[in-house]
């Protein structure tokens, strides 16, 4: 089992869209995928189940005593399961602030899950929710829209990953790659791509996700673009991304175990 965190502290870069469609793509490659909605906006939950802020949710696991496995449910995508999120997750930073081992609660809750991949969709911040998701992950996938603004704040995300790696002894937490989203053949996009290629040499994924209306329409119909419009440019791109991620981050055959570093927490 391999856990991949989809993270970027900037909003609107396609984190949720990437999480949903990557999960669906890996499922089409015959993997069993668990999507964990760590974002208080719970858009991934809605996009794959049609439920708006269902309860109970991941909040009850992180803040309460609920077992995560009682929340795992089917989604509209075959071979994709979900741990739903809801709006109360936005309060988690405050509610967990004084608790010991607060960064490890999600990792502990996921222990023993038998999926091939776990995909964690995170909020656009570097707060406790994202820290929980990073601590629970083996790899980080960073979606980035090719605009000038998206370059701002990338350093902060990198610093947070490095800091967490040291602080929580996450020796094997690595950036799997940076994937360009909302890609268009414009001068700005090409320039930004050039900057990122220099900065993340060897980490820029070959797959670029184009700007495509079918991605948005698929959200409205509560399914992935791979079900809604598999032959669209967005559908083809996300299928290619799933293949690339499979190659870069192979699924580990053993059940999820990320607690080995938590014994002291």
């Amino acid at each position, binding site marked *: 089992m391999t856990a991949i965190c989809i993270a970027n502290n900037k909003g609107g870069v396609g984190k949720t869209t990437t999480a949903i469609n990557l999960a669906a793509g890996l499922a089409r490659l015959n993997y069993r995928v668990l999507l964990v909605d760590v974002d208080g906006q719970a858009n991934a939950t809605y996009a794959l189940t049609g439920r708006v802020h269902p309860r109970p949710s991941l909040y009850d696991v992180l803040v309460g005593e609920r077992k995560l496995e009682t929340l795992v449910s089917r989604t*509209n995508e075959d071979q994709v399961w979900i741990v739903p999120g809801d709006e109360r997750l936005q309060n988690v930073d405050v509610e967990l602030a004084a608790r010991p081992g607060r960064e490890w609660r999600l990792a502990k809750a996921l222990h023993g899950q038998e999926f091939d991949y776990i995909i964690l969709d995170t909020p656009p911040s570097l707060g406790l929710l994202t820290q929980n998701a990073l601590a629970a992950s083996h790899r980080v996938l960073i979606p980035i829209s090719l605009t000038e603004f998206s370059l701002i704040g990338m350093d902060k995300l990198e610093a947070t990953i490095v800091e967490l790696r040291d602080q929580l002894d996450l020796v094997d937490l690595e950036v799997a790659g940076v994937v360009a989203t909302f890609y268009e053949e414009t001068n700005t996009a090409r320039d930004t791509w050039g900057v990122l290629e220099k900065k993340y040499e060897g980490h820029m994924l070959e797959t670029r996700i184009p700007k495509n209306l079918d991605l948005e329409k698929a959200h*409205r119909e*509560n*399914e992935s673009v791979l079900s809604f419009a598999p032959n669209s440019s967005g559908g083809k791109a996300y299928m290619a991304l799933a293949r690339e991620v499979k190659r870069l981050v192979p699924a580990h055959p053993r059940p999820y175990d990320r607690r080995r570093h938590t014994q002291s927490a």
Partner: protein
Amino acid sequence: MAPEALARTLRAVAAELERDPALARRIAEALAAPTPDPSPTGEAEGSAGNLTPGPSPARRGESAPTVSLVPLGRGGPSSTRGDQGADAPTPAPPRRERSTRVAPRPPLPEDGSPLPVGEGSEVGAARVNRSFRPRLITGASPELGAGIPDPFALYAEKGEQGLRAALAELRTGSLRAIVREHRLDPAGRLAGNNDADKLRAAIVKAVLRAAR
């Protein structure tokens, strides 16, 4: 009305006027229009003596309406609270009645042609300034529970109408998941079909067939 509430109200009115230039223009025109002299008793103002219209903009040669806010209990040039006693001879200045009149709408063209949309057009202004109503997404009913809904259980519990009502709330993705999960399309005729109505019809048909 409490001063705070009044201030909130005025701020809201000011915000609306800023947002809607056409409304502001109509009110300005209405206020600038000549009005009969006010009643000397000022009864129309009731107990809200702290809000008094200022001098008529028309008399000052201005186009914008103004109001003056006078603290409660102090009275004012036009105060009608009666707290100044009988020896308060200060005459109230001319005051206009509160008016709700607005500028008349332009007549509709007799030939039925549409009115021009844009500056100075009431119809156009109404179109431009229609209130923003975002689509409210409530999602699938919590009654359906987590996971993929079971149409057979829904039919058994709520009957055909209940099943149809439940399916009507679901989007294509959920309907497709029901079809796939319960193997309602063994021939694969609905594969790749994004028509929600066809998916709903297929589900209902399969459930009714099984129920017979």
